[in-house]
């Protein structure tokens, strides 16, 4: 609400400003490209704070590459990826021409009309960048293109493919064979007097058990979520919950609160943890020369071994639908997500690329974290859910973690699943 007030105040201030400046028409219309004269183009772009130097270098290269066609100036601003959606939706016309955002925000941005369709830019890409939209889709891994697509229209350029989780472990405590299944992993941890940590009270983490058993989620156009976890996919929802309870009740298991993995690893309680690239440094420090990472182990549902799939997200670069120089903005977005820049991004910031060529580079394989991401990406599900998904699934995970559900009480589990599904599927007012 505060944001609203601020924007209203700004509008009020603007209205006062208009009183003073009315009548001053904006006569500067764009010159056409074929007039022979070089076009003057100014763009704005948002990037994460710790990416700024790297992005500035990329922008300089971009300006140089296209200097034959136009005089481009790019103003770079600081904006965290996680907060990008909020700031864009607060005032779309004031948002940057080019911005990065996590893929699970795509639908919100598209339905608010904030994203420029990339498909419309086919002609521009062909004329200036010498590629088609199909080439862009071809160059990046399938999942990332899917995550950038809505209603068969590509709305953003894939940039990274590492926003997921996998298993960090201490190879001095746990052997490579033991990380293959949850039961042997927990057994080894128990034997060493340590624990394996995973966050259960978050729909981002606990959904992985359901996705592994073939369950799905999807989002409707009106922002509501479809979820079938109380029914039956490859297994029934009750059986999945029993499998979760089996892991959670093991003395070698520790249910982490969200974002607490680094802390717990540092305090020496854990010999393995389910987390993502953001905890890479913490895990290296905690495990020292035993630092290792791999895909999630298998777990037992109703007596069968099932590979534990992870939720994966992508970082995308979008073009503002209200951008005046939308064509140049699209070229900039394409440029900073192309093969060379993705490679640079991995070298400088250790960010996992979505470009197929870069992924095949041997330097990825040499990197412990990055190769774990690649390994897990085979068993990864992009998560597409509405805002009503989070609170009910978080509480469900908390009930599992706290042992409020009993594995032999199937009726209790079923009713908890039903309540959760009802909450997730509730209409968005």
């Amino acid at each position: 609400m505060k944001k609203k007030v601020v924007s209203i105040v700004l509008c009020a201030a603007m209205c006062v400003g208009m009183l003073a400046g009315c009548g001053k028409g904006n006569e500067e219309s764009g010159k056409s490209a074929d007039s022979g004269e070089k076009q003057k183009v100014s763009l704005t772009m948002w990037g994460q704070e710790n990416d700024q130097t790297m992005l500035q270098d990329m922008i300089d290269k971009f300006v140089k590459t296209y200097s034959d066609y136009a005089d481009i100036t790019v103003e770079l601003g600081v904006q965290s990826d996680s907060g990008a959606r909020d700031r864009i939706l607060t005032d779309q016309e004031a948002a940057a021409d080019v911005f990065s955002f996590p893929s699970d925000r795509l639908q919100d941005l598209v339905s608010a009309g904030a994203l420029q369709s990339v498909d419309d830019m086919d002609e521009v890409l062909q004329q200036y960048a010498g590629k088609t939209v199909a080439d862009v889709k071809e160059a990046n891994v399938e999942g990332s293109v899917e995550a950038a697509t809505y209603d068969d229209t590509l709305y953003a350029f894939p940039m990274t493919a590492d926003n997921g989780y996998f298993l960090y472990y201490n190879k001095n405590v746990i052997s490579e064979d033991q990380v293959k299944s949850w039961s042997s992993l927990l057994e080894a941890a128990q034997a060493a007097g340590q624990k394996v940590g995973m966050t259960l009270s978050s729909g981002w983490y606990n959904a992985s058990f359901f996705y592994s058993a073939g369950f799905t989620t999807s989002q409707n156009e009106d922002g509501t979520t479809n979820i079938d976890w109380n029914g039956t996919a490859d297994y029934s929802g009750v059986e999945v919950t029993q499998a979760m309870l089996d892991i959670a009740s093991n003395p070698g298991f520790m249910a982490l609160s969200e974002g607490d993995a680094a802390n717990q690893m540092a305090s020496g309680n854990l010999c393995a943890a389910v987390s993502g690239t953001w905890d890479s440094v913490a895990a290296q420090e905690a495990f020292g020369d035993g630092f290792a990472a791999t895909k999630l182990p298998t777990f037992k549902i109703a007596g069968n071994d099932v590979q534990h799939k992870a939720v994966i997200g992508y970082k995308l670069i979008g073009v503002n639908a209200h951008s005046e120089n939308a064509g140049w903005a699209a070229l900039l977005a394409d440029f900073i997500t192309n093969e060379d820049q993705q490679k640079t991004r991995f070298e400088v910031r250790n960010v996992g690329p979505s470009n197929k060529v870069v992924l095949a580079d041997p330097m990825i394989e040499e990197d412990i974290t990055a190769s774990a991401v690649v390994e897990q990406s085979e068993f990864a599900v992009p998560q597409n859910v509405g805002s009503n998904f989070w609170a009910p699934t978080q509480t469900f995970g908390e009930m599992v973690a706290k042992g409020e559900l009993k594995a032999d009480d199937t009726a209790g589990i079923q009713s908890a699943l039903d309540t959760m599904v009802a909450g997730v599927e509730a209409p968005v007012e």
Partner: protein
Amino acid sequence: MNKFLSGITSLFSRIKRYLGKFGTALAKGDLFVRLSLIWMGAGYCRRKQYVKSIIITLLEAAVVLFSVTIGFQYIPKFGTLGTVRQESIFNPMTMKKEFNDYDNSFMILLYSLVSILIWLIFLIIYVRNIVRQYELQKMEERGEHINSFKEDRKLYLGEKFYVTLLSLPVLGIFLFIVIPLLAMVLIAFTNYDSRHMPPTELFTWVGLENFISLFSSGGLTITFGYAFVRVLAWTLIWAVFATFTNYIGGILLASLINHKRVVGKKFWRTMFVIAIAVPQFVSLLLLKYFFADGGIVNTICSDIGITEFLRNIGLINTSYIPFLTAPGWAHVMLILINIWVGVPYQMLIATGVLMNLPTDQIESARIDGATPRQIFRHITMPYVLFITGPALVTDFVRNINNFNVIYLLTSGVYVTADQALANSQAKEVDLLITWLFTLTRDYYNYKMAAVIGIVVFAISAVCTVIVFRRLTQGDREEAYQ
């Protein structure tokens, strides 16, 4: 209620009187008074108040200009809040996007509001101006002295300086509080949400629909009624406890420090002031980590065996003490932590009051043989209550809306295990205001935010009125004598 009614009646009779004056001015005024109907500076010009004439003419011109360029553009669309949706097409030749001449519902709402307010104010100035012109005409007829601009300026820098001083704050309040507030009230009657987000989409008036959907069957979420009752109950319990524990704690602490036998009064006072000199959110975030499930307090408790003891007597069944993560525990901790961050403020206020206690009363009570406890109960407390009563009411209302303490201590830590609450995005420790925040933050549900804002305002207002009437009932002077 009667006061309220008589206030309205007197307001109307004043308006009527003023309009009567306006009529007389028009009927009996000379040519220049009547000319002022069109050219507002005419009358001033005739009475040789040229500077005033120029100023009011400029004002008139500005309002006319505003009306033509902004007012008349937006006001006609105010009824629908716009009908033309945004459409755009990308032109690969110019590399630019071309937009149609679309309506922006939010701009229409805001500019219409501003226009209406400006016109209202202008109307008042306009009517006053005519009345004033007639007064000037009569003054001239009677041969009285009419102030020159220099004399007027002197008047507003001297005798009427308060008008000059107050005009800026009034303008500020108008721009930064009144306009946003009115805009928010208007939004409560529209369907402004994530699916009707300008500039891409239009929103429009829906009447009382939002209020109905808040309170009718189901409400905002599928378990809305269930959650609303529980959140409201905790909000009130919290407000009562948070207010009174702080208040009494502050007075006790102040009287302790004020006691004759306490050495180093200034030192103690400074110590407690330091506690409030640290920004509140810093201390709250620190406390959140101290009392986390794996935090330092839990480590200490398990080292010295308190955790074990609590588990043995059955108070907890976890390997840690869930200070901020289980209902009950979290409720008590929130109130306790609030005492810690809030008592020093109350102590400062109470110290000021206690230092000004009427000593004659205490003296005579002592001579009459009253014990210190009796003095505290019958003299000190009533006096302090009398002085700080209004502050107590504002504290209560502030605690109803105490976003900081609750949000900073529980967000990201507290996870409810009550599925019905979770289905309404609520937690056991949520106040109305923090619930409102989570309900609207992820949705861009501006319309419901506005509606709940109005409801929270109504609850706060009702509480204030009730408590205030209680406190100011009877002859207060007598209460502590």
